[in-house]
């Protein structure tokens, strides 16, 4: 972990609701595991006193990739308004990322939210190992989902939208019964209700939730220190108190309570 500068070298609008930022980060990119985070200094101390966590994924050539949607938070809004050539002050990589799949064939990536980069990082790794990958995304409507045309063709894609404008009409968790039978391991990012459904349905479909099957990324909007000092992110688990910034943000969901 270090405090260093990264530079925005590319910024493109990839859909009405999505931006793709590429940053050179020679000190960090090769060491960052998908799911780990950086704390980035945003805007001014008055509107944005604390650093904001971002969850980029490494994309080779000393670069990091970050997909963002417009966000009312002043820090994230400032970040999205950066231009090519702008420099960001970051601390990281912080926390524990997603583990690499060990002796797994079928990899399920699932999200009902917007921290997609860690999943896409896992996807790239799984494809390079010739594993089977299904990506399931949920959202309110097609325009809010991460754009499909930018996914590799080897990935099986499933969508769920509340208005039925793409894929299944309803929640992404409606797709779980079939997907959970197929999957050897699940990597998830999104809401706590997604994690809750994943646990309940895994117990139902697979007759129990074992270790090393469900991984979820917990991401409170703020991490004051990111290094285990401030204790703002403490989390009750079956194994006692944990810190999301040190022990997570990726957790084996079999080890944390249902209400987390």
């Amino acid at each position: 972990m270090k405090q260093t500068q990264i530079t925005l070298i590319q910024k493109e609008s990839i859909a009405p609701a999505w931006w793709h930022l590429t940053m050179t980060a020679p000190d960090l990119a090769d060491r960052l595991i998908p799911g780990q985070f950086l704390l980035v200094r945003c805007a001014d101390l008055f509107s944005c006193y604390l650093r904001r966590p971002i969850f980029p994924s490494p994309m080779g050539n000393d670069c990091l990739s970050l997909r963002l949607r417009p966000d009312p938070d002043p820090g994230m809004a400032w970040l999205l308004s950066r231009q090519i050539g702008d420099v960001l002050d970051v601390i990281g990589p912080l926390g524990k990322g997603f583990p690499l799949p060990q002796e797994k064939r079928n990899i399920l990536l699932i999200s009902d939210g917007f921290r997609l980069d860690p999943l896409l990082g896992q996807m790239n790794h799984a494809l390079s190992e010739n594993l089977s990958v299904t990506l399931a995304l949920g959202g309110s409507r097609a325009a809010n989902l991460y754009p499909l045309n930018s996914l590799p063709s080897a990935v099986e894609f499933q969508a769920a939208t509340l208005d039925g404008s793409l894929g299944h009409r309803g929640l992404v968790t409606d797709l779980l019964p079939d997907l959970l039978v197929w999957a050897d391991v699940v990597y998830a990012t999104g809401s706590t209700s997604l994690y809750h459904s994943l646990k309940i349905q895994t117990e139902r479909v697979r007759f129990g939730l074992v270790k090393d099957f469900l991984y979820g990324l917990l991401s409170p909007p703020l991490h004051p220190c990111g290094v285990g000092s401030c204790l703002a992110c403490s989390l009750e688990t079956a194994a006692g108190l944990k810190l999301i910034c040190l022990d997570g943000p990726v957790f084996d969901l079999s080890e944390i309570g249902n209400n987390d």
Partner: protein
Amino acid sequence: MIELAHQHKIGLMLANPVMIAAGFAGYGKAYHGLINIETFGAIVTNPITLRPERGTTQPRLAETSAGFILNTGQQNPGVKKVIKQNQNFWAHLKVPLIAHLPADEPSDLHRTARALASITTPQGHPLIAAFELGLPPECTPRDVKAWLEAIQSDAPLPVLIKLPLGAPLHLIEAAAASAVALVISTPPLGSALNGSELVIGHLYGAALHSLILQEIQLIRQQVDLPLVAVGGIHTLADVQNFLSHGATAVQLDSLLFIDPQQAEMMAAELTNGF
């Protein structure tokens, strides 16, 4: 070099007057690898109590304009586990380590202090250089006396006392009578919204600087003891402001979250120029 504990037989020598406040560097290891924490004059640890403390429930944090509210409720794994988890790291740390002890039952404080003072290097030097006793908002001079006796009866280390902001004169005098230095101050309470939930806790951020500068002026007139200023220090100018207006040393707090490199540079600057 500055001496914070003139009257004390062991003393407390700092290479520079810039310390890290309790809650902002864990037990020393938190920023290891990110900055060189040995650059600082001293490190004050997170709170240490006799038994494990679970702390408060979530949400614990809310951001404000130019600051934040944080309430962790003294969460710590208890003195035994703190020692077990950190002893090896402390043994190689070349910077004075000050253990922060929240006020507690005197018998508990006594055992906590004794346990911490008894850990030494193979040569017999204590790994803890001093204690910082954190006073609660409501307490009496008698309480202060009882806590100090409890800490010092088996642990011959210097004790700094961290006062609540706006402490009454009789409490300041009682603290000054038994401590080697006063730490000014535990930040005031505030509340702010995290989503729809109100978080009540200590206020950190830029506004503290002027509150503490004023508090230092008041206390300076009352007691003749080294004062340590803590609250809202963001720049070298902030440090110098305190040092030229009554403080012998300072503790950095939220700057560690915002810009750890800047914090380290400020300590380095004052090591050379002091």
